[in-house]
């Protein structure tokens, strides 16, 4: 049985949607998956809408096209809901995750009648309480792992801890804040 999960990220230049896509590919690779993480490039400017993609599978990935019928969509900035058709092609048995200060009931009417599952998270609050700075990548990464069920939460946290330990060997305080952000994001997404 060939299983493939396809994820599309929407963000604005400078918010780190591309980095989030590459981080997800990284952690999936570390858990033994075949991965493809790539951005769609144009004349990027800070604040302009950008798209990035992940393919995660248990077999080698050969297709090199963009993703048109994703299983999951992650939106890093809810102001995009007014300008970008974020649910385009999104499978109805999939789900969309949106970073927003708004409540889920306020978001649903903005999704062009999408019938699948909708999840929201206030990544800003998670960041300010755990990191003291707004880096939406970290909570969005945990949230998409939870929403997609791509990997076990405990295994994901163990993997993140070991890779962050390596990355921030000289800054243990950064490791702790990031781990708290991941754990809090698991609780906050709904």
């Amino acid at each position: 049985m060939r299983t493939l999960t396809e994820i599309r990220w929407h963000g604005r230049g400078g918010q780190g949607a591309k980095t989030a896509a590459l981080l997800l590919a990284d952690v999936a690779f570390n858990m033994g998956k075949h991965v493809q993480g790539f951005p769609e490039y144009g004349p990027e400017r800070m604040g302009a809408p950008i798209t990035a993609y992940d393919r995660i599978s248990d077999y080698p990935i050969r297709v090199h096209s963009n993703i048109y019928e994703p299983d999951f969509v992650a939106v890093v900035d809810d102001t995009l809901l007014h300008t970008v058709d974020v649910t385009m092609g999104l499978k109805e048995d999939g789900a969309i995750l949106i970073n927003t200060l708004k409540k889920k009931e306020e978001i649903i009417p903005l999704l062009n009648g999408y019938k699948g599952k909708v999840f929201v998270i206030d990544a800003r609050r998670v960041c300010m309480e755990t990191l003291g700075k707004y880096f939406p990548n970290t909570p969005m990464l945990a949230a998409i792992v939870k929403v997609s069920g791509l990997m076990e939460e405990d295994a994901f946290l163990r993997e993140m801890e070991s890779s962050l330990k390596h990355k921030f060997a000289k800054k243990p305080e950064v490791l702790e804040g990031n781990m708290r952000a991941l754990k809090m994001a698991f609780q906050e997404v709904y």
Partner: protein
Amino acid sequence: MAIKDRMSGNEAVAHAIRQINPDVMPAFPITPSTEIPQYVSSMIANGEIDTEFIPVESEHSSMSAAIGASAAGARTLTATSSCGLALMWEVLYVAASNRLPIMMEVVNRALSGPININAEHSDSMGARDCGWIQIYAENNQEAYDNTLQAYRIAEHASVKLPVMICQDGFITSHAVENITLLEDEPVKRFVGTYEPEHYLLREDESMAVGPYAVSCYCMEAKRAQAQAMINAKDVILQVAREFEAISGRSYGFFEEYRLEDAEYAIVAIGSVCGTIKEAVDGLREKGCKAGLLKVRVFRPFPGEEMAAALKHCKAIAIMDRCEGYNSVGGPLGAELTAALYRVKAVSEVVNITYGLSGRDVKVSDVEVVYDGLEKLAQGENCFGEYPYIGLRSADRAE
């Protein structure tokens, strides 16, 4: 022991460059190849390699500096894309005619205009007749493997020609994918040290590089250079066999994917070939005898071998990621069609332009091509007179 990792195509070739540790790298940044000199600079700063990095003010200068370094006897490389490659145009010929085994990482990108940064083969295809060997990759793995084989081909005594190692801008250069790397030691043993026979810094031999040649010698020099490109064919296959022995990965002039019994074949270059393979597998399940010929080596052009592998097909689509602006089609289409004529092939042949300026190609786009080939074999041409796929407007003239 093979090392399982994940990285982008640019990281993959930078990793290969670290393992090779060449002597000199002059470079000028241009999207999407900029990361390559950037990674190499970091490796130098970190003391991982002792390559001499020469920052220059243009690509004409990076290639000129590469020519100087290579003529002096140094193992030399550079990297570029698009307009950067076009700016090198004059000196590309100088590198090849002086028989300098320079390696260049080409991250394929559209030429202007309109100005665009995305994948297209017009840059390296524009330089197809400048005397450089050209090897193309489908993914990060092949870009890495081709880089490791480059100097062995270029520096071979019967070749001594520069080589372009090409991959598709962004589609593979910036996509993180799984890759299997070799350990440093077997790579170093495989690539070996560069020991040129003649070079400018050799104390006991005076020589000139790049002087004027009068008419009674110049034509002989050019014929000798052409012979080197002919000789490169055997060397490319020999190096591939040796590379297979250390990596387990097999390479040739091209890859035949389910082609042996195929009735309908697509011929293409680069990252689109993975997407085509996916389409082929799907069509085979439905009983359609689809196949792919993926071109790896474009210079020297293995026309005879490709034609032999394709001759049995009822219909063939030759796909160019490059507009020929000649009112007929692209360069792969022109050259392969000529090669098919020489083997007296009776297959229907169509030359299709696709993927210009990063236009995405989906599995369903490829299926449409195979469907068209089936019809073409039955005498119905639905491709039109000047076939494009993925074009948004049907009114091409507007």
